[in-house]
């Protein structure tokens, strides 16, 4: 099971956190601090696994961002690397060659995509296309709702003008 997902920038700034196991707010800050110290200092050629508090953290660096997932000792580390890559590819497809700024300004989108990929710390969908389709469908639902409200506000505004 994946206990949590972290996206940390090379400068140690947190870009996304998702907790599937209960950690109190205090613990979360501590975990993030500990792990960024551990991971950001590792050299480029080393393996992508860090042992930490009896668990294992699998991380992978994409450009300036570190994607980290914390798993149990008996989970498959290599598979987690694939899951991370899977997530990155979906993000890439969604944003069109994703960069850190996309994830900063549209952080909620990154969360929505992650929620279509993982639930309860387990993988939900192996098909990138399905994930993209589901996210797009929900985005369009939001768009429709927005248009409706704006048209209603327009009508109200017109009435008010008259």
């Amino acid at each position, binding site marked *: 099971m994946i206990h949590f997902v972290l996206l940390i920038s090379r400068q140690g700034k947190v870009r996304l956190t998702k907790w599937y196991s209960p950690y109190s707010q205090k613990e979360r800050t501590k975990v993030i601090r500990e792990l960024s110290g551990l991971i950001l200092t590792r050299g480029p050629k080393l*393996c992508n696994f860090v042992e930490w508090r009896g668990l294992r953290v699998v991380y992978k660096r994409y450009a300036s961002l570190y994607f980290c997932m914390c798993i149990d000792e008996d989970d*498959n580390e290599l598979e987690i690397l694939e899951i991370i890559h899977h997530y990155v590819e979906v993000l890439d497809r969604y944003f069109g060659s994703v960069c850190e700024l996309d994830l900063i300004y549209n952080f909620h989108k990154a969360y929505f995509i992650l929620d279509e990929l993982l639930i309860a710390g387990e993988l939900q969908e192996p098909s990138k296309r399905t994930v993209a389709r589901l996210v797009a469908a929900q985005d369009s639902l939001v768009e429709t709702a927005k248009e409706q409200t704006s048209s209603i506000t327009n009508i109200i505004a017109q009435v008010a003008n008259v």
Partner: protein
Amino acid sequence: MNPFSSGTRLRDMIRAIRACKTAAEERAVVRKECAAIRAAINENDQDYRHRNLAKLMFIHMLGYPTHFGQMECLKLIASTGFPEKRIGYLGLMLLLDERQEVLMLVTNSLKQDLNHSNQYIVGLALCALGNISSAEMARDLAPDVERLLQFRDPNIRKKAALCSIRIIKKVPDLAENFMHPASSLLKEKHHGVLITGVQLCTDLCKVSSEALEYFRENCIEGLVKTLRDIANSPYSPEYDIAGITDPFLHIRLLKLLRILGQGDAGASDCMTDILAQVASRTESNKNAGNAILYECVETIMSIEDNGGLRVLAINILGRFLSNRDNNIRYVGLNMLMKAIMVDAKAVQRHRATILECVKDSDASIQKRALELVYLLVNESNVKPLTKELIEYLEVSNQEFKGDITAKICSLVEKFSPAKIWYIDQMLKVLSEAGNFVKDEVWHALIIVISNASDLHGYTVRALYRVFQASTEQESLVRVAVWCVGEYGDMLVNNVGMLDIEEPITVTESDAVDAMEVAIKCQRLGLTTKAMALIALFKLSSRFPSCSERIKDIIVQNKRSLVLELQQRSIEFSCILQKHHNIRSALVERMPILDEATFTGRKAGSLPTAVSASSIIPCNLPNGIAKPAAAPIGDLLDLSSDDAPPAPVSSGGDFLQDLLGVDLSPASAPSGTSQSPKTGTDVLLDLLSIGTLPPVQSSSSAIDILSSSHDNKAPVANLNGLASHSSLSANATSPASSAGMMDLLNGTGAITQKHEENGPAYPSLVAYESSTLRMTFNFSKQPGNPQTTFIQATFTNLSPNVYNGFLFQAAVPKFLQLHLDPASSNTLPASGNGSITQCLKVTNTQHGKKSLVMRIRIAYKTNDKDVLEEGQINNFPRDL
């Protein structure tokens, strides 16, 4: 911009925060935003609620408190529109965790959304429930989730399956409800549903043996067929990763098969063919393929024996180990750890490669490899492997040295074929990385040395040589100093020369020089210097020719700014000057230290009542035979931090330190936290027998003393005295100890007095049930009537052993309670032993109110947790 809008847009806020150059600026921006959001919340602003929440989430990610937004999430979730709900659920998952009570309020909204007509809203609710559900919510909403496992849209079914995993993990009783729906998911074609269904079955097997049996009977063939289909499937672009169709599904199927095959030969048989196929035909040039192979190897290793498959698996691991990719090597090492339980020989073949990995530049790999080497060592290969590790120790980097020394020490101790080898290896480790070893390691070494009477000369000369070469490694210096103190005469006279040794000439003054170096060296710590002082003191009688010089060195330290050294040197020089008659007896060589007691204590179990009749037959695996010495408690208190605080009264401290080397803070608060001791301790401490664990009753102390009576002359001299005073448990007869007190030039006499006038209280059966009795013994320190020391003794009245014994007590506000650790957490059955625990109660209203206490005792018996509670009102009035 919308005319009704207030505040900034999300994007603008993020931009503003990013534009901040200092942390203070950022805080200011965030504070302003938070204020605006709070205002909006107070006005119950509906239009921008979701925007505000999105901002809060960003602020939350930066690490600022956002609890005030929690209720907003609930409001958004309760609203009707999809956009509001979407952001509301996101906020719920981000800002709350399952332990917050607010979460209970959302259960009703979740229930409604799980039954919503819009499937995306159902999806949102399932996702939130799966990610943060608490046990209560899981119980309430399980029926809805179970129903959704049959929902028409596969995307809801897969979410429901993962949500069910969370539910059964939180409430394992619900597992059986999910068994049948889960097994029907295994027949699905949709990969998402299939993957999540397999995962759900795996987790069901973990929480319920009934489910495991059910799947074993009904699903194995289907699963094997699914795996075969997917392994043989032609290229499918939707699920393809590096030329393999859906590796995620592969891995999950293999994992479930592993659980089903474990411990069931029939089930294991069904899957051998497909496992062989996956293991031999999966491409290993990409990570995805290796991930499958890795999982497959683990399954092969875990299911019931099939020789052919295991060979295949070990070969795959061999390939992993020689792979250039660090990740692959890491998992290879990891898997070999598991394989070693199954087939140690096959793993031994890769020993050389594994040793190479210990020297890798990657810390993660080093650690794994070291763990593995540790498991690989046995009697036959301990010598070459230790040699390798010690050689590597010289070049390894600083952070890794601690780990590696700990492992070497434990290996050497476990498998040592001969004492001399053990001592040699330990000396190498200490001289290489002595600063990294834990205290108990060099303590253990001293004990082994003390027991190897034929090697005393050899050891002390070897240590002297290394000490001359370098004083860099402190624990080496300590061992050397101790040995020179004890066996200095053997050093000088070349006693017990072995053939392999080169003779050295050390004069008496050389040995004294060495000790002087240890005392004067700036770098060495207090403990080492104190040990060196003792060593000098001991040498004073071994080397009469140097005794004047030794006296000088000791006198110099009288002015030491460190209290400990100053005190010791004052005491020692006093003995040197005034007490010639007892000096030689005092500095007598240490009796052989008892290994059994030490190992017992190291293991955390305190030896109760070691008596002469119970000489433990010794089959130590390392071939270090224990001489039949009378067990004499701990002659030298080598404990520094792992042992419970020694029960010493303040008067005893001086004397304990006189010969002991314990400078740990553990003994510092003694006398306040322990029940006051009688003069027995003073005497016991003088002979360094004083560190008996607090459990031991005075009768066992006598046991020890009388047992030593037979063979230890110096102890025998004082024996009658000591046992006499230990019999008069609370009231010391001052006469018996007075003889010893002048040793201290009166320092101890004052502190000693208080023992005599402590009023006696009858002991009290504080609590008694059909299974357990607790007795309190009271004592007080004179001059401090408010404080009562209580020794609680627990006796098991049932025929079953109690494990995990825990005693807790609570007192009203006018009392202060201090609990010391209990003597043990296991209580033997039928009153065959007891646990004791000391309590200190301070009554701030002494004389007005009497003590009262509420207690709770928890323990485990027959695998059941038992909790007993009670209140104690019948304390003696004047406590």
